[in-house]
């Protein structure tokens, strides 16, 4: 009698402790809720909350989401990733707000053999044992969408004005790439600093070069400075920009001078204006509804949408992986990784994703649309 009771307890204990561990899929999510990266880290967190509300189970199995703050610090991000894998036995990592911290997490994911989806644009060294993918559009793709539109608009010469920092150089390289393809000529390369009081000199020189259009390589609020100076000098031509200008303060400061500027953006930014046939329309509207429900506010930023897409990629791959292995095991992680790299034509809110084992990036030109600032609002320009 005594023995059978003991056996019963043991069996029940095994069942109770064993069941949840094998049934649930555990996701470890890291973002910057504090520190300098918090201004984009918080939207990332809100995006994942919306995604979790949208889909919280795969093939009948519950998903368990664990979120940690990395304080915008790469070493904390790496420590968090290790903790999530070793203590919480997560099946997949998603993170984080800044590229350096995401790279640090990526290294841990490869070492501990756990798949990872990065929501920041990271540069992943070429490797044969790839465990992570990145959701965002590559900067070069952002610029190419803009220069392609310039070609369509019949622009032959372009004047460039941008920040005198790494971002300014990056955008300039985008314009230069178009020149190397023989699409247009860059006739001016002018730079300014974020703390400058005036860009009159730079603008005079650009206007004197008489370009067909001007490309703005600034970002956020101070991206408006050249536009204001151009208006002052009576410039009436076309101006193009990058997603770095998708910022409420840019519109506020730029005012009338910023009207008419054309920038590339993820389709989710203008989801409500997209035609019903557009791949991003349906997921974007679902994303916005979930976001509103969970966070109690509307979403206009592109960052929370990257988290949402990361979730869609994970759920899509997990569905296929469930058929082959049990969550919580090393086999499942390997299968999940293989399935992520087998993602085909998955429509998210930002892009259609196609991952292959030879690259961490899986988006193409369809991930960007052109939007024009009209009466203080971004308008979709097909």
């Amino acid at each position: 009698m005594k023995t059978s009771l003991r056996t019963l307890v043991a069996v029940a204990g095994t069942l109770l402790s064993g069941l949840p561990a094998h049934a649930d899929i555990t996701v470890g999510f890291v973002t910057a809720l504090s520190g300098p990266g918090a201004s984009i880290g918080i939207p990332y967190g809100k995006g994942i909350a919306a995604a979790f509300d949208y889909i919280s189970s795969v093939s009948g199995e519950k998903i368990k989401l664990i979120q940690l703050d990395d304080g915008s610090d790469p070493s904390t991000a790496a420590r968090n990733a290790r903790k999530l894998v070793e203590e919480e036995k997560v099946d997949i990592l998603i993170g984080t707000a800044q590229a350096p911290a995401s790279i640090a997490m990526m290294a841990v994911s490869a070492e501990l053999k756990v798949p990872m989806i990065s929501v920041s644009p990271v540069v992943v060294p070429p490797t044969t044992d790839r465990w992570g993918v990145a959701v965002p559009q590559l900067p070069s793709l952002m610029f190419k969408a803009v220069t392609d539109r310039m070609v369509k608009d019949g622009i032959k010469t372009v004047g460039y004005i941008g920040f005198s920092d790494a971002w300014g150089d990056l955008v300039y390289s985008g314009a230069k790439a178009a020149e190397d393809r023989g699409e247009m000529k860059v006739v001016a390369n002018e730079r300014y600093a974020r703390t400058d009081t005036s860009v009159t000199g730079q603008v005079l020189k650009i206007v004197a070069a008489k370009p067909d259009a001007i490309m703005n390589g600034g970002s956020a609020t101070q991206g408006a400075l050249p536009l204001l100076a151009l208006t002052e000098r009576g410039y009436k031509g076309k101006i193009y920009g990058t997603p770095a200008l998708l910022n409420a303060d840019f519109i506020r400061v730029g005012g009338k001078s910023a009207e008419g500027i054309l920038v590339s953006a993820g389709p989710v930014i203008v989801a409500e204006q997209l035609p019903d046939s557009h791949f991003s329309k349906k997921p974007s509207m679902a994303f916005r509804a979930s976001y509103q429900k969970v966070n109690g506010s509307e979403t206009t930023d592109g960052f929370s949408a990257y988290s949402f897409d990361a979730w869609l990629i994970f759920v899509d791959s997990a569905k296929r992986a469930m058929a082959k292995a049990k969550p919580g095991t090393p086999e499942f992680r390997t299968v999940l990784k293989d399935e992520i790299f087998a993602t085909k034509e998955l429509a998210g809110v930002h892009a259609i994703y196609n991952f292959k084992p030879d690259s961490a990036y899986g988006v193409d030109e369809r991930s960007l649309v052109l939007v024009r600032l009209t009466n203080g609002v971004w308008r979709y320009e097909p």
Partner: protein
Amino acid sequence: MSSDIAAILAIDGIASGAIYVLIAIGFVLIFAVTRVIFVPFGDISAFTALTLAALETQRLPGTMGLVAMLAAMATLMQLTADIRASDLKAIPSTLFFYLVVPLVPVALMWFAAGSVMSMPVRMGLSLLLVLPIAPLLDRIVFRPIADASVLLLLTVSMALHFALVGLGLMFFGPEGVRTQPLTDASWEIAGMQVSLQTFLIVGSAVVFSTLLYAFFELTLTGKALRATAVNRTGARLVGIRPAYTGTMAYVLASILAGISGILISPVTTIFYDSGFLFGLRAFVGAIIGAMVNYPVTALGALLVGVLESFASFWSSAFKEVIVFSLLLPVLLWRSLSVGEVEDEAEE
């Protein structure tokens, strides 16, 4: 370069130069009286602009928290000093000058913010609110080490700047602001469009420099400041308190910084950390005036503005390099013509 472009660049340069003149004169003023190279001076200018912008959008400016915090710290320090010196009679005046006086503009702002004010009122309030910052910082940071070497004072001043920038980020947030222009009018002079704003900037620089000159020449307080600048020990012997002249110098200089902040805020976007570069450029002007000569300082600051404007046309990527390279020949010439540094020698 055509003459048109040169003229536009020159006007643009003079306008920025005039802003630097105000800040540079403040630098020299504080340095002459207290021997402190007040690095956070540009920050005060930027904080004024940010305060003005907050008032324009009917928000409570972050400066209020900053001033209240500094006033509390200064009062605490002064009270401790009073009690240690068993000077209990001084306590009421300490409370009045370090707590009540700085908190008056804060209280005014508390009641006024949120309501729609006319532009001159907003400007007056912003100016009033930033005035206590520099004198309070003087009390908290510099007075305990007033007799230290210039190098130590500079190092402390640099550290103070970083602290202020951090506080600026906390109180004002990371986004930049731009205020409404004082006027949209512009005049045509010899075929050139010159905005009234430019005239206002240059005019204010001239008016306030002249006022400062009159203050030094005609009032007793001004003369006391000059006396301290010429010889601190001598001034003390004839009954001028260095603590008092120091506070006066900070207040006067803060007015200049505040005005420059108000003038520049409609022209460019100001961030919480914009002040440092204004200060650095003005500092080049002050160096040209050898940190003592007001007229040469003003000319030097103007030169920096014009050079900056032309440099941004010639080679915008190297603009800062060109402007700050100006320091090298000036320093070389200074060190050759002066021979020895007088400051440390007298101690």
